[in-house]
């Protein structure tokens, strides 16, 4: 699995997201309270850019009239038709096994640790790294 620098940590503050292109792939990286999650930036339904969606929590109802809210900030809602995706897995809420968007392994590190030979961006500070 190859590692690719996608962004600087300071480019994606907590609660924010950034759409990047890595090796021709559009990937959106979300920072959820210091944890990073990467999804393919295209909804599997009709291709809406998930990077334009709102990030919400999970509202569920065990039975009619009884609601619970959990996992604030961990679900993205497609900007087009509103399908919801779990940022941790890329799986849709309404049919997780059938409809999902690719999820990428994201880590944070600095360039020295990764023994990079050449890099176009400044090597100061920490980077968000996508594993492809």
């Amino acid at each position, binding site marked *: 699995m190859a590692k690719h620098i996608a962004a*600087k940590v300071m*480019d994606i503050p907590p609660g924010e997201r950034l*759409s*990047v292109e890595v090796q021709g792939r559009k990937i959106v990286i979300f920072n959820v309270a210091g944890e990073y999650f990467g999804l393919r930036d295209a909804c599997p339904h*009709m291709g809406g*850019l998930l990077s334009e969606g709102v990030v919400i929590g999970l509202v569920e109802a065990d039975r009619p009239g009884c609601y619970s809210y959990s996992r604030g900030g961990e679900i993205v809602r497609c900007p*087009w038709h509103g399908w919801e995706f779990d940022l941790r897995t890329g799986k849709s809420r309404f049919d997780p096994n059938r409809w999902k968007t690719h999820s990428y392994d994201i880590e944070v590190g600095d360039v020295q640790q990764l*023994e*990079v030979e050449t890099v176009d961006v400044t090597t100061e500070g920490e980077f968000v790294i996508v594993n492809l």
Partner: protein
Amino acid sequence: MSVETIGKASATMPANQKLVIADCDIHPSPKSVEKEIFPFLEKRWRDHYQTYGMLLRQPYQAGPAYPKGQPDAARRDAYGPNGEKPGSDLEFMRKHHLDRYNIELGVLNPLKSGQGLQNPDFAAAYCKAINDWQIAEWTSKEARLKGSVCLPYEDAILSAKEIERRAGDPNFIQAFMLIRTSEPLGNRRYWPIFNACVEANLPLAVHAFGFGGTPVTGGGWPSYYTEDMVGHSQSAQSLVTSMVMEGVFERWPELKLIIVEAGFAWAPALSWRLDRIWAQNREELLHVKRPPSEYMADHIWYTTQPFEEPDRRGHLKDIFEWIGWEKLLFATDYPHWDFDDPTRIPLPRATDEQKQSFFIDNARSLYGV
């Protein structure tokens, strides 16, 4: 390990795009009613707007009867670069929509256009202003866009006047109203509209939603927006049934009806049911000379957004064939949230000619442009 530089991803035109597209349902909005619509309203109605607002014929007066699936019922990415309301900025619409999808013909269907207002004179004045505004802000600036003659449809005489006023004006290619009327549309009180459409050689487009004052389903007021959304196909079926049974198509053999945004897969089943019941009760309806399915086949076009999405797209093949590829019109509903992308709808397997007719030629020949 390789290292990539940071690159911002952007929406690009799909590489496999070959067809040119007719989008038969685009919703333009004024950036501001005061700035863009007031110039076309008499002072009396500007004052009325500011004093009384736009009172609709519906029981829930504060906004739409049901909250929408997204704010402004819009795609979240449809706001302009400076936060302009979705569908309100021509330059942004060109880039974000017309150019991106190779749209050669875009049909403007303004909502919040004065249709369904309780005050019939205000409805007529506001519709007329919206029609003037379509020319001033849209069709005179962008040749790909064509306007719709918005009708104050609960008053058929005033509607017919508005159609006559716009007859022969190349800025307009259809008359336009909403599907939820106060009474089923075949009712004689609406007949002057059909007569005017035929005289002006304009198809009549009937779009989902509306403010008839009656519940949005045949079984009363439902609780949820999702029920409101599927209710449009019920409304469309009542409308089609009424127009056939009241003899509208018998009376105006040239009338062309376009059902906009209310589904289409229901049409075959409705026609089979109507044919059967009609045959069993012919005495009741002596003026309905032919089987209902024939009137439907001859007179009705359907825009396809929001597209039907069966698990197997093969299921749609029969439906397309029954309705006829030449009667189905592609539409996106831009900038609304239930937008259809022409490259991603689950179109049944089709020949190149069928695709060409569906995406562009049907609209060209229906509208004569």
